[in-house]
C-alpha cells in the first residue's frame, strides 16, 4: 500500500471525471431541449402559449452557455488528465485518452472560421445534421466518461494496493 503520484492522479481524475460526466449530461439535456422544446407546444389551457412564450434568444443562449460554460472547461479538464497521466508514466491510460484528446483539438481548431470563441454556432445549430451530430457526440462522450470513471476507480485501487 503506497500513495504514489499515480494514485494521486487517479484520485483527482476520479473527481474530475465525475465533473465531466456532469457537464456532458448537461450538454445532452441542452441539446435535447433545443430539439424537442418547440415540437410539442401542447398546452391545453392556453391555446396561444406557443406564440406567447418568449423564446427569442433561447437557441443563442443555449449555444453560448454550452460553448462557454461547458465545452471549454471540459476540454481543459480532459487535457489536464492527459498531462497528469503522462507525468505519472501511466502509458496505458494515456493511450486510452489520446484519441479523445486529438478529437478535442481537432474540434477546437475547426470552430466556425470567423474567429469567435463559440464552439456551437447558434445560426447553424438548428440544422438537423449538426444537431444530430452534436447529440450523438455528447452521448458517445457520456459513455466514454462513464467507462473511464470505472477504469480510473479500478486503476486507483490497483495502484494503491500493488506497491
Amino acid at each position, binding site marked *: 500500500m503506497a500513495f504514489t503520484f499515480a494514485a494521486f492522479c487517479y484520485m483527482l481524475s476520479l473527481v474530475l471525471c465525475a465533473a465531466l460526466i456532469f457537464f456532458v449530461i448537461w450538454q445532452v439535456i441542452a441539446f435535447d431541449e*433545443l*430539439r424537442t*422544446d*418547440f*415540437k410539442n*407546444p*401542447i398546452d*391545453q389551457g*392556453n*391555446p*396561444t402559449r*406557443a*406564440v*406567447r412564450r*418568449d*423564446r*427569442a*434568444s*433561447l*437557441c*443563442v443562449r443555449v449555444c453560448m452557455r454550452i460553448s462557454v460554460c461547458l465545452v471549454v472547461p471540459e476540454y481543459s479538464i480532459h487535457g489536464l488528465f492527459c498531462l497528469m497521466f503522462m507525468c505519472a508514466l501511466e502509458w496505458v491510460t494515456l493511450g486510452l485518452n489520446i484519441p479523445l484528446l486529438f478529437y478535442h483539438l*481537432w*474540434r477546437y481548431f*475547426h*470552430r*466556425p*472560421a*470567423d*474567429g*469567435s470563441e*463559440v*464552439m*456551437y*454556432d*447558434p*445560426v*447553424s*445549430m*438548428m*440544422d*438537423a*445534421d*449538426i*444537431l*444530430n*451530430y452534436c447529440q450523438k457526440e455528447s452521448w458517445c462522450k457520456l459513455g466514454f466518461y462513464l467507462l473511464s470513471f470505472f477504469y480510473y476507480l479500478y486503476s486507483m485501487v490497483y495502484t494503491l494496493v500493488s506497491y
Partner: protein
Amino acid sequence: MSQPSVGSPANHVTSAPSQPSRYGIQNSPPQGPPAPLNSSVQPGQPSGYGIQNSPPQGPPAPLNSSVQPGPTPPPFNPPSSQTYQPGRQPFGPPPPLRPAAPPTGQLNNAATPPPPAAAKQEVPGAERAHIHNSFDALESGGRNAAQHPPQMGRAVGLSYPSLPPGYQNMAAPPSAPGMQTRSQPYPAGAQSFQQAPLGPAQLGSALGGMSLHQSQPPEALRAINLLQERNLLPQGPVTPPVPCLPQDLQRLNCSPEVFRCTLTNIPQTQSLLNKAKLPLGLLLHPFRDMSQLPVVTSSTIVRCRSCRTYINPFVTFLDQRRWKCNLCYRVNEGRASASQLVHYDGEPHKRPEVKNPTIEFIAPSEYMLRPPQPAVYLFVLDVSHNAVETGYLDTVCQSLLDSLSLLPGDTRTKIGFITFDSTVHFYNLQEGLSQPQMLVVSDIEDIFIPTPDSLLVNLSECKELVQDLLKGLPQMFTRTLETQCALGPALQAAFKLLSPTGGRVSVFQTQLPSVGVGALKSREDPNQRASAKDIPHLTPATDFYKKLALDCSGQQIAVDLFLLSGQYCDLASLACISKYSAGGVHYYPSYHHLHNPAQVEQLQRDLKRYISRKIGFESVMRVRCTKGLSIHTFHGNFFVRSTDLLSLPNINPDSGFAVQMSIEENLVDMQVVSFQAALLYTSSKGERRIRVHTLCLPVVNSMADIFAGADVQAITGLLASMAVDRSVTASLSDARDALVNAAIDSLRAYRSGGLSVQQPGLVAPACLRLLPLYVVALLKQKAFRTGTSTRLDERVFAMCQLKYQPLAYMMLMIHPALYRVDNLTDEGAISIADRTIPQPAILQLSVEKLSRDGSFLMDSGSVLYLWVGRNCAPNFITQVLGVPNYTAIPQTMTQLPELDTAESTRTRAFISWLREQRPFYPILHVIREESPLKASFMQHMVEDRTESALSYYEFLLHLQQQVNK
C-alpha cells in the same frame, strides 16, 4: 462548426471526388434511332444531333395536334378516376382537367385567383386549380396555330468557332419542327397523352387497369435521350407539374408560385427517396404580393389542439362538429366558444379557411407578446469621402424625398437618420426645431445615443424637418476629407436606437469598414480571381456582424444592406448582418453617378420599390408538415429559432425560402401529406396578421411515380441553395462536384429504377430533361464558376441571391430567357389590359442561336440585354431603336425611344410586360457586337464552351460516361 460528414438522409449533394473524365468530344454517332418506346406517340420526333440532311419526318406528332380537338374525353378514362382511390397509380390518366383551351378573353384573370365569393361555383373553382397552366396551355395553343417564321432557327455559328461538331451540324429544318413537337409544357402534356390516339392493344391494357409500365408512360416520364434531342426548352415558361390529386383536392391546393415542392409525389419511405437520389424540399414565397387574398377577422382562430395547425382545406370533417387534423390526425371538436359557433354557422364546409389554401387571419390579442410595433425606419448612410465621390447621396435622398409618402405605415410611423464616416452623426428632428440638428459622437469605441427621444421621430408630425434634412444632406458632406469609415459603431448605434421598438435599418455602404469594431481588411487577391482552384474567403472574417445580427433579430430589427462600391468590400463578412436578421442585400458594383448612369437608374428604381413595397414587422414563420416528415434545413435569410420556427424581424414580398425535408417515419398508411407555412407578422398599419399557406401532395411508392412528379425548377433551386451552403462550409470545388453528382445520381437512379426499357444514350425522364442544362448553367453562374475572372464580392452576392430569391426570379438568374425580337409579330400574342404583348419563343442559350441579322433580348432577371447584330434589319434599327443605322447606336443606351411605329410598340410592350412580372425593375442595356457589355451578355450563353468550362453537349457526354458506368 465542423460539418459532420455523415451523409444526411435528404441531402444528396454528396461530396464524392469527381472522377477524372475524358472531356474530349467523342465522335461516336448517336447510337441507333430514338428509342422505340414511344414511337407510336411521336412519329415526327426529330432525331437531334447530326441529321443535317434528313427532312422532318412525317407530320407533326399527334402529341401536338391532339391538343386542338378540345373536349373529346379520352375513351379509357373512367369517371371513377375522379375519386381518389388508394390503390390506384396516382399518376394514372388524370381526369379531364380542362375541357378546352379557355378563350383568350379570360387571360386577364388567369394569373389571379378568382374572388372568394366566386369560389362557390364549380366552374371558376376548376379554372383556378389550373391557374398556372391554363395560361400557358393557351399560350402554346396559340403558338401551335401560329406559323413559325422561316428564319426562326437559322443556324449561324460561322464566326463562332469551338462549337462541338454535333451542334454545327444542326440545320434549320429539324429545329423548327422540333420546337413544334416539344412545345408542350408538362401538365398539358399529360392531358394530351390521354387524348393521343391509342392502339387497341394499349387501350385494352389501360382499360384492364394494368400497370403503367406496360402501357404508355405519362408524358412526364417519357424517356428522352438527351444526347439526341436538342430542343428541350419549352417555348413558354417552364411550368411546374401538377400533383396528381383528386380534382376536388387539387382545386383547393396552394398556388405553385407560393409553395412548391421538389417532388410533387412524395415517396413513401426514406429509402425510396434515397434510391431516387432527388432532393426533397419545399420552396416558399410566403409574403408574395397577392391581388386576391381572403382575409378573415375572427376572435378565435380554429387550430388543431395538439399540433396547432390552422384549419385548412385538407382537414377531414367527421361530422358537423368534429374535424380531423391532416397533420397530426387528432380529432378536434369544433365547439369551442360561442363566437366560434356563430362563425361556424352550422356549416363548417363553407368557412373561408376551408375553401382557400392561402388565407390571412387578423390575429386577436393572444398572438401578441406586446402591442404591435409601429413601422420604424432608420437610414444609415455612409458619408465618407469615398461615398461622396460616388454621388449616391443625391440619388438616395431624392428617391426618399419622392417616395416619403409611399413608406408603408400609419400615424405612428417613425423615421430616423444616422450618417457615419470616422465618427457617427445623429440627427435631432424633434418637433419644434427650426432645422435638423446634427449631433456628432466621436467616441466610436463606446457608442452611445445622445438624445434617445428625438432621433426617431414621428413621420407625419415632423415631415418638414425630415424633408429639410433630405434636401440638405447631400450638400453637407461635399467637401469632406474623411476617408475612414466606421460601419460597426454606426450599426451598433442603430441597434441601440431601435432596440425598444424594432424596425428596419437600411444601411448604405460604399467601402470596406476601416475603424472601430467590425473593421475589415482586404482579403481579395485580384490575381486569384480567375483561379480554377478553390476560392478562399467565402466565409466571414469576423463574427461581429453575425453576433450583431443575432442581437438585432432578438430585438426585431432587420438590416438591409445596400453596397455601392467599386472596390472589394468583403461582402462575405458584411452580408452576415442581413443574413441573420432577415434583411436583404443589394449590390451595385462600381456605382458612380457620372460614370455609370445605368446603375444610377437601377438604384433609383430599386429604391422606389424598396421604399414602397409591403413590409411585415416582428414576424415568425413556422413550417409544419404531416407526422412522419421532418424539416432538415432551412435556406434563406432568417434566424432559425427552433426546428421548425424562423425568426424574421422583417418580412418583405421579395424574399423566398427553401426547406429541405426528410422522411423520418414511413408514410405507409397515408395517401396524402400536407405542408403548412404560417407567417405571423405585424402589418405596417399595426395589425397582427397570420398568413397561412397549405399544400397537399400525394404519397407514392414506386420510383416511376417519384420521377413523374419531379419539379425540375424547384430541384434546381434547392440544389443551388444547398451548393451555396456547401461552398461556404466546405469549398467551392466541393460544391461544384456536388452539383454534378446530383445530376449524375438522379439520372443513374432513373436509369436503374425508373426506366422500364433500357435505352442507349443519356436517358432522362421528360420532367427532368432540363436538369443537366440547369446544372451546367449553375456551374457557369457567377456564384459557382471557376476559371473566369469573378470578383469575390460579385460571387458572394450571387450566392446571397441564390439563397433568398424566390424561385421564379432565381430561375431567370440561373438560366436567362433569350428571345428574338427583331421580327415580333402579333401572332400568338396575348392581350392584357388593351395591350397586345407578343410572345416570341424562348431560344437556347447558345451563340448558335444568335444571328448577325437579328436582334435578341436576354432576360436575366435583374438585367435585360438587347443585343443588336451587325446586319440587323435597318427597319428594326430605325423603327425601334430610333437611330439611322447600326453604327449610330450609342455605346450606352438604356432606354428605348417611344416611337409611334408598330415595331416599337410591340417591342416596348413586350419589354414592359417582362418588367411587370418582377418586383425590381430590370435595366435594359442595348449592346452592339463590340460593346464592352458584350462579355456580360456572352457569359450567359451557358450551352457554349468557354476556355474553362464544358459546353452543354460535352457535359452531357461526361454525364453519360458517369451514368453508364
